[in-house]
């Protein structure tokens, strides 16, 4: 299958000569795994991830007309997915009147049954350490560590300066290291 660039997909989505549904399907196929992984690392459970991924793509579809290309398409898509995750976690806290620590506790409880069979003890420990991070640090760490997203791009996703994100990643890495090594 030909892999189209984001710009080509955007042109096809906006062009009257092309079927926008077909172009959107190509966009979904191109980004579904990356966005899924990003959401899953935040909410842990597959069913929640599936709902949030659907909502993310529905919002992308509905608001494509408003996308002004001030940022890259995939940055904009990541932003929508991140906002969906944060909204979901906030709703969870509100609905069950949970303090932040209890949401963490719930995510930690879910961790075991959601981990891949290939994941070893050290991998489980890493995930525990990531879940224990503050929300924003968790997003920054995941985007940098797993997606290897450049800070400049991340600053567009999270609307924060690259310097602040660098510091945030460093803090997160230090906390995780401490948790992993027990020092």
């Amino acid at each position: 299958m030909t892999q189209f660039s984001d710009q080509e997909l955007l042109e096809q989505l906006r062009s009257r000569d092309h079927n926008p549904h077909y172009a959107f399907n190509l966009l979904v196929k191109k980004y579904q795994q990356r966005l899924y992984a990003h959401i899953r690392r935040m909410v842990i459970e597959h069913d929640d991830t599936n709902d949030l991924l659907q909502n993310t793509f529905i919002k992308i579809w509905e608001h494509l007309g408003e996308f002004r290309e001030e940022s890259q398409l995939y940055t904009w898509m990541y932003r929508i997915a991140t906002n969906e995750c944060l909204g979901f976690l906030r709703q969870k806290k509100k609905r069950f009147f949970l303090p932040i620590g209890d949401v963490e506790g719930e995510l930690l409880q879910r961790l075991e049954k959601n981990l891949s069979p290939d994941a070893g003890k050290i991998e489980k420990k890493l995930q525990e350490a990531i879940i224990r991070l503050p929300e924003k640090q968790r997003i920054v760490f995941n985007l940098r560590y797993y997606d290897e997203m450049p800070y400049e791009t991340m600053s567009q996703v999270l609307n924060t300066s690259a310097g602040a994100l660098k510091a945030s990643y460093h803090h997160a890495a230090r906390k995780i290291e401490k948790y992993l090594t027990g020092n």
Partner: protein
Amino acid sequence: MEQENELSGFPGLETLKKQEPYKVPEGYFNSFSERLPDLLVKPVRNQLRIRKVVLVSCGLTVIIAPAILLFQKPESKPLIEPSYTDLIESGYVFELDEALLSDEYSTMFHGAPRENDMIEDYLIENTDETSLKSQL
């Protein structure tokens, strides 16, 4: 490369093999991209349905509300004043107590003598009956 340098100070993280930690149901991504087009159409359909319902209910309100107001409005038929014969035939007049009427009449003026009454009393007291007859 840049990221590896970033992790150089963290040996625990640096030595870890990077892999996606969570299991994904088999064939999930194929079914997801197949299911999604339906989900994209549904919200639009729902929106259209909601718009239709709103429009129809607005239309019905515009038609029904004035009709209800029209029916609820009190009838503004002019009152027909009863004629003298109507009053007599109704027999209502005969049921009135004369004493009650006179009481009502006197209280209407808070018990104060009317000017006409004073003139009448004066005439009765000071008029000679014979001269009055002769004048008539």
